[in-house]
């Protein structure tokens, strides 16, 4: 009945996505990442699903939808990056859009927090 109920879900979904993304970014920048890393594989799957939105997971579907509506996010570019993450061809051209995605998630999470605080 309240928007808290709705935004709590969005907040949780984005938080999980954002944490995963930052962990992968730290590993990528430190040169400590390989395509077999479970968190990197998970992120690759999520990014690829951005284009199709066919994930059966409701939470991820919601986050995907939220991100596809964000101006800075190009779903096809991120899906391509998802494929690159499955390979060893990772360079700064991969990291830069992931940084933008992380910033975008941060903004969406801030919005969700603000809406929860508004109550009503």
């Amino acid at each position, binding site marked *: 009945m*309240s*928007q808290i109920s709705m935004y*709590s879900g969005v907040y949780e979904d984005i938080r999980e996505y954002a944490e995963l993304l930052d962990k992968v970014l730290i590993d990528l*920048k430190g040169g400590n990442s390989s395509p077999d890393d479970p968190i990197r594989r998970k992120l690759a799957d999520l990014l690829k699903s951005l284009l199709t939105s066919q994930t059966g997971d409701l939470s991820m579907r919601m986050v995907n*939808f939220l991100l596809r*509506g964000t101006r800075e996010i190009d779903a096809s570019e991120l899906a391509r990056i998802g494929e690159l993450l499955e390979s060893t061809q990772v360079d700064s051209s991969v990291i830069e859009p992931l940084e933008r995605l992380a910033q975008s998630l941060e903004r969406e999470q801030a919005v969700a927090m603000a809406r929860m605080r508004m109550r009503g």
Partner: protein
Amino acid sequence: MHEYFQGAVRQLIERGQLLISMIPRGLSREFHRLEDTCRRRLSSVLDDLNNLITDPRLLLAANQPERLRQFKRAIWEMDLLETVCITALERAKDSDKHLNRVVERIRIEIGYPMLPPVVTPLSQSYFQTYPQFNLMLVPLSEGHFLLHLPDLYHELAHPLLLTRYDRHTQPFKDAFIEVTDHVTKHIDDELEREKRGNGPQLLSFYLQQWLKYWILNWTTEIFCDLFAVYTLGPAYAWSHLHLSATRGGDPFKVPTISGGATTHPADGARMAAILHGLTLIGFANEAAQVEERWNAFILVSGATPDPDYRRCFPRHLLHIVAEKALPGVKGMNCRVADSTIIDVVHSTLNRAWVEFWRDPAGYANWEKTAVEALRQECMKTP
């Protein structure tokens, strides 16, 4: 930034530890799960904060953006735990027990597939649920009345949509996903029509906005309404009418440039889905009675649906939502309401609305006795 993190993170760690120490001892049983959630999440935040000042990778200049984002997430999480969970635990009193027992009884009556949320009378604005904490906030005096209690059923539906890897709740979520596909198709068709007709660009913008609201907000609300209709029956429809009449705005509001954003679907759209849902489970007569009163309310309010409303909330789409949600609820093996059910909470809440219309002037007196009877019944072991 390094010095800033060294100071701010340590201060935040102090705060987290203080919050853990503020969790009262000897809380009653219904608060144990919330206490456990609170302790676990606070510990996790404290671990993350410690990492921010000890993990060598996070001290590298290249990783400062990630470090800052992680820091902010930790603050948001701690804010939420402090303002919601710790506050609820600090104010846990015996007076909360009644509604907790009512919710526990509802859980048993309807075959709710999860543990019941903790109910606490701390809400500053109507019913609210934090699904991640399994915590429901209600207004302070709500336990003394009956007419709005059907909203407990609506709030119970929110956590169902947030579960993951749970086969019991999957049918409800699958139904939700199906509905979002229908909504997307409806909006895509409308967009296509606009393109063909060279309609104003503003309408295309509206349609895209409406799609966003439908997927991120409105479908959830209408699904929770329908869960309440299917598990409680007519009382929920009456309760929605009551809420719309007392606290609602324009029942046909649609987000446009002049109308502004709305996180809730229009009350009229919700009522259309609710009435169709009632009919689907065999309460066609009751649906007609609610509709008659609803139409009278609309007439008095002076509100009328405009073409934007009809495009945003077409009746056929609202009916599809109701039709998809029903197997979703049945698929969770929840008990669907019918007129033969004599369970105590179900009967009390439906009877309350019958009494309200039978003798409006005498209702308040009847309600006092009924609330006391409900209280006594819920004290007993089911």
